[in-house]
């Protein structure tokens, strides 16, 4: 599935860049993140508990940042697997200044496999969108704090 959108964050571009590239603060924004370990430069291992209301699953996987062009853009690759299957996504993330604010534009593709794909199909796209919205909302509140 294709994921595309933008989110306006209440901070300057540099501040946003810093936050997104700081593993500790990133961990606090990743929805359901229970653990994040840095295993290399821009490479983290994560444990996430993702879900929507009654539906939930634990995933362990990795986050990688690449093609970094501070403070303009980077690529983010997330993958995780769990009993319910696997999730995999890659997105290009672009930061655009808008006065004191920053517009984050993302576009990428995500896929799910296993149980999630075969029985959760009708909910998956929305779940992915909601997870992203949650992520940016978390980033926004981190920036405000």
């Amino acid at each position, binding site marked *: 599935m294709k994921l595309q959108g933008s989110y306006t964050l209440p901070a300057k571009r540099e501040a946003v860049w810093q936050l997104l590239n700081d593993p500790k603060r990133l961990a606090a924004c990743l929805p359901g993140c229970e653990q994040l370990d840095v295993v290399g430069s821009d490479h983290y291992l994560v444990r996430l508990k993702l879900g929507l209301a009654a539906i939930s699953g634990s995933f362990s996987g990795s986050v990688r940042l690449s093609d970094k062009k501070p403070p303009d853009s980077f690529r983010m690759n997330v993958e995780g*697997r769990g*009993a319910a*299957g*696997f999730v*995999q996504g890659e997105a290009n993330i672009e930061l655009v200044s808008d006065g004191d604010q920053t517009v984050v534009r993302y576009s990428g593709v995500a*896929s*799910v*496999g*296993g*149980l999630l*794909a*075969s*029985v959760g*199909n*009708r909910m998956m796209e929305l779940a992915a969108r909601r997870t992203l919205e949650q992520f940016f909302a978390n980033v926004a509140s981190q920036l405000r704090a």
Partner: protein
Amino acid sequence: MATATRYIGRPLKRKEDPRLIQGLAHYVDDLRLPEMHYVAFVRSPHAHARIRSIDTTRAQTAPGVLAVLTGQDLDKAMGVIPCAAQLPEMKLALRPPLAKERVLFVGEPVALVVAADRYTARDAAELVEVEYEPLTPVVDPEKALAKGAPVLHPQYSDNVAYRWELEGGDVKAAFAKADKVIRQRMVNQRLIPVAMEPRAVVADYQPGENQLTVWSSTQIPHLLRTQIAAVLGVPEYVVHVIAPEVGGGFGSKLNVYAEEVLVAHLAMRLGKPMKWTESRRENFQATIHGRDQIATMELAVRRDGTILGLRCRILADLGAYYQLLTPLIPTLTGLMICGCYKIPAVRVEITGVFTNKMATDAYRGAGRPEATYFIERAMDLVAAELKKDPAEIRRKNFPQPKEFPYATPTGLIYDSANYQKSLDAALKKSNYRKLRAQQAKLRRQGRYLGIGLSTYVEICAMGPSSAMPAGGWESATVRVEPTGKVNVLTGASPHGQGQETSFAQIAADLLGLEPDDIRVVHGDTAVVPYGIGTFGSRATAVGGTAVYTALTKVRDKLAAIAGHILQEDPKRLVFRDRKIFLKSNPAKSLAFAEAVSAAYVAKTLPPGMEPGLEATHFFEPSNFTFPFGAHVAVVEVDAETGEVHLLRYVAVDDCGRVINPLLVDGQVHGGIVQSLGQAFLEEAVYDENGQLLTGELTDYAIPRAWDVPRLETARTVTPSPVNPLGVKGVGEAGTIGATPALINAVVDALAPFGVRHLDMPARRERIWQLIRRARQAGSRPTARRAGAGRDRRVR
């Protein structure tokens, strides 16, 4: 020594039913053995990936877990999953029962867990950690052929499994002299068989006796036994296969599966009885799929509607590996592509291709529904192009009844038929003329009635051994007990078809007994002589004939004994009412049981006769049989929503002589409704990553009771000359005849919108799009929604 037909032809209610309607029958999952353990499989969530590592530590140490095994653990313990089909220059695609280095489809087993109960096994399976390196999946069969597409089997340079060609007559000349050439690309989508009973296997090994007993929900107990022995590398006499009650198959249990050989292996390896029961999800992922062919049909036609020639190119998506008959199925489409028409020149080219999906294989009809759909759709396209009635185009191209046996340019000999008669009967029964008038009237009101025809012929009674991958004969043994009760042992192991009844009817008539005197035994390799199985509408025509012939042997012997005792010519004796008597003087008689007793007591036997009363016959058919029929479907399309309402369905089938009309009706009804599933509802959808999106019944719709109107069935009877019973077979007729009738009806309903073809399933949204596009293009009728049939929805 004439045979009275007191039971053959009668709608006798089934002998198997009392146990089934009271919950007293036993399917595999109903079996429980002391110390039985349960197997759960860990399956790949990836369509295409390399296995990096498998960590079984956590699973292994979970309480209640007896063993956790991976492909590496099994390495030399067993062979590969068998494929019985062989085609020239066919590539092999050997599949280990548990994946070793790579996985090639979602659902492929990579590890297994054995535990004391099914809950523990399920829990522990979740603890097995598999790391994969995902590879690019190949999902679309057309793209699989493209240059640069990833290759599934790295030992080869591309994904082509085989190419197969067939040509008869002068095709070039036919197309050269045609007034028109009709062309259409058509898709026969991938289907999931969904037998109501998922697969299940129980295995038990007794080392003292060196006996491995495997209970499996299978259509082919003997072939399974041979293959289990081969895969496990043990003498065949070690293996004993039992198919107890089998809850439907439709071809999906005409196979040898990884789970069957693995569970058998585990029973020997671990020394405990093992059970595995498939979940519906596993059934969707890892039991064979059906159809999945893309065809390009070209018909060379004369202006008057005569078909001069046919070219057909078929791309068959075989999936990642072969199951038992995978490569063979599309060739059946090729052989039957001419349908019931006299087409003098034919060329068929088939390309089988590997993709990262479950294997396709024989699913009810196996190759023939595809052929029938392609040719029947094409005939409607011809009619539309030439502005002729579809019935007339068909009639014009039928061979005449006197031309049978009729040789097709694909090399088959159609045994007997009267296509004109079944078409006439179907048109009359449906009141075709009136329907057309009604259609015209409704169209003026903005309502879209569609009338669809299909005249079909199928190839059944599989078949002469020369044309079959593993023998086409069938066995029967008739064993009469000293008390005069009769066992009929058949190799045609049923799974719902009712052989216990139909074969008892044959036996009762031949021996002058009552059906209650007869027990039909099947599905146990230790009891029943080697047989082939029930599939390809072969049970009655081949299995029934074997029974018939074995019965005549027993009867001849009994007549000789009775003749000896009565001092009469055996040829003048009649078997009836549990007696053997002189035709000219019924008072001169012997009870059937007395004659039988004489065979065992062996004091009054004719000189030189061996005692006992048992006969076996292995029947080898000289040809296939070719049942046929004509179907008419009437639908209304709701132009607002695209919903299709099936209003009427008329089927006139000819399956030769009928043993039990009740059972024949049941087969026809079931086939039609399964076909309705393909036409309107069913499709196995894999996404671009090879994930099976229709992975449960929540997303894969099979017909429900309210999707179906009352079916109107009738028969013509053209006996087959191929076997003494004159039967042809009926198990697949409905599935073969109905799909094109239904789609032809939908396309006919949409004709005012300029629609000439529609791929299956005829989804609502697709129809809605076609109508909308036509309306946007202008000059097309605008319409109010359907009135009639509003509440009979094909959901």
